[in-house]
């Protein structure tokens, strides 16, 4: 069926001109985010490159990515992955180095670019809460651990990933500059104190459901998710104190069939226009500072880059080095 489709497109294009169609594949997590990426990046990219179709695939699955790279025949050309995975994948040789002759490295915020990946968008872990759940709104990570002052369940990200452990340490009084290497014993001890009050969320949508339904009173959330809740009129507050930045990254699987096109796609995605458009559609922050100038004020207001005071960058290099051992401890602790 696929071959037929490709053949069909190819013939249609052949009739129109000498160029032959090429189908490159962009993979992301599905839902409205991928729709936005398609609109902001893929559609204009295809318009600029005669004879190129950008097909949407997904959801991203790291196991699938590894299998296709191992088999030497990746079907994906550009993949949206989490930052810590991007670093680990580079270590394991699963992704191509980015061609910075094509992609303008200097234009991208240095926090969100590595030799093997460029930022897709960035976001922050922030403290979100239901207004009226306690007498005064929680203002710091320490408040999340204060069950007397702020009763109710706490929502935390379920998987072993950058974020929750840092929050526990910050709440325990660790200075941001001393966060890494993480004091795991101390972090788990802190989390232990509220373990019975934690509800875990496994996906962004689930976190929103937890807060909107009142199931959780406060907790750790992605800023874009809370922004969306506020837009829908939910009585939800945000504290940006010590917000923790993380990002999705774009990578090109090792041996990708359309490597050159993929690099051009990365350039398009990280261009100020591409980033501004995506931010407008999703309320995620642009990784390219120049995008700011292209965005309207309403969009800019909800973005993490308005809250850089006290902002902390999660250390993805540290996480990539310790992903396995932290995961072992994390799940062991959860299962206890």
């Amino acid at each position: 069926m696929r071959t037929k489709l490709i053949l069909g497109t190819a013939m249609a294009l052949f009739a129109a001109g000498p160029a032959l169609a090429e189908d490159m594949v962009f993979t992301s997590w599905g839902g409205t985010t991928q729709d936005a990426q398609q609109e902001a990046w893929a559609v204009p990219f295809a318009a600029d490159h005669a004879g190129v179709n950008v097909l949407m695939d997904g959801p991203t699955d790291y196991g699938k990515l590894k299998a296709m790279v191992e088999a030497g025949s990746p079907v994906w050309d550009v993949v949206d992955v989490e930052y810590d995975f991007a670093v680990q994948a580079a270590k394991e040789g699963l992704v191509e180095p980015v061609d910075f002759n094509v992609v303008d490295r200097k234009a991208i915020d240095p926090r969100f670019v590595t030799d093997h990946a460029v930022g897709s968008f960035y976001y922050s872990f922030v403290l979100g809460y239901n207004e009226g759940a306690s007498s005064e709104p929680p203002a710091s990570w320490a408040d999340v651990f204060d069950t007397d002052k702020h009763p109710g369940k706490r929502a935390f990200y379920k998987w072993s990933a950058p974020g929750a452990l840092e929050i526990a340490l910050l709440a325990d009084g660790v200075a941001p500059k001393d966060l890494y290497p993480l004091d795991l014993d101390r972090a788990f001890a802190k989390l232990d104190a509220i373990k019975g009050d934690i509800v875990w969320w496994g996906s962004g949508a689930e976190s929103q459901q937890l807060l909107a339904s009142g199931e959780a009173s406060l907790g750790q959330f992605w800023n874009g998710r809370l922004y969306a809740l506020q837009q829908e009129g939910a009585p939800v507050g945000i504290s940006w104190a010590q917000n923790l930045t993380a990002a999705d990254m774009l990578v090109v699987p090792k041996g990708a069939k359309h490597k050159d096109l993929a690099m051009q796609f990365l350039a398009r995605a990280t261009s100020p226009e591409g980033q501004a458009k995506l931010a407008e559609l999703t309320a995620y922050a642009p990784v390219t500072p120049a995008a700011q100038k292209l965005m309207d004020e309403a969009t800019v207001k909800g973005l993490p880059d308005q809250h850089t005071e006290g902002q902390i960058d999660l250390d993805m290099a540290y996480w990539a080095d310790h992903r396995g051992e932290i995961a072992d401890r994390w799940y062991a602790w959860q299962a206890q």
Partner: protein
Amino acid sequence: MAHGPSTMPAHGLPAAGRAPSLRRWDGLGYVLPAFLLLAFFFVLPVVALLLRSVLEPTPGLENFAKLLTTPTYAQVFLNTFTVAGVVTLASLLAGFPVAWLLAVLPGRWAAFLFGVILLSMWTNLLARTYAWMVLLQRTGVINRALMDVGLIDAPLPLIRNLAGVTIGMTYIMLPFVILPLHATLRAIDPAVLQAASLCGANRWQAFRRVLLPLSLPGVAAGSLMVFVMSLGYFVTPALLGGASTMMLAELIAQLVQSLLDWGMGGAAAFVLLVVTLALYALQVRFLGSGRMTAGGAG
């Protein structure tokens, strides 16, 4: 391909295993298509993957050593078998009377009840599981309704624990016990029970001595499906269970899909496979593989 859907199933039957000289291998031909399919598309790739458990990160048994010495894995194994056992029991208890009712109801009502079961099955599993999540949570419909009528004062913890997984999975698994049980009960000749009654058995005796034993093949088929299916289940425990009821399939999914630790994932899958097959062998040893049919097909 091993299976040609164009040929009628029965056409191959007489030729396949009737040659008298091959009496000892009688019937093997029937099994062959399914066997070849599984051999090529299941055994071959899965063995290749499981082999990585002794090859990665370095050749040796270190993954298995880690599996056996880390308390988490023991806990997760225990969770897995506990949940599977509880769900199987709950499905049987809830499903047996329904299968029985289906077998005795007048045609139209039986069709109606069948309709209800099929309707629920046909609705997407993820959507239904999510619906349960919203129904069962602390601020969910069920808890609020119970509190409104004054049955409870504080919300019951119905989700993110064993209760949530049991409700959600029993819900999914019910049809898998009802259908085989129904098929078995329908095959029982009502005259047998009349005979029991003529011989002076009361209702309870007739149930215990006649109906229940005769329904055992269905019980065995249904509970086998539910138990084994539950062992490897992923979606429902992930949404309705809590971190403390984490099951093996979730952990393996983490290892394989997120951490890319295929060696460890393979080792965990291998142990699950061996333990389950051993349990199955025990069951066959002591109970026979579900063929307790009086005067059965043997």
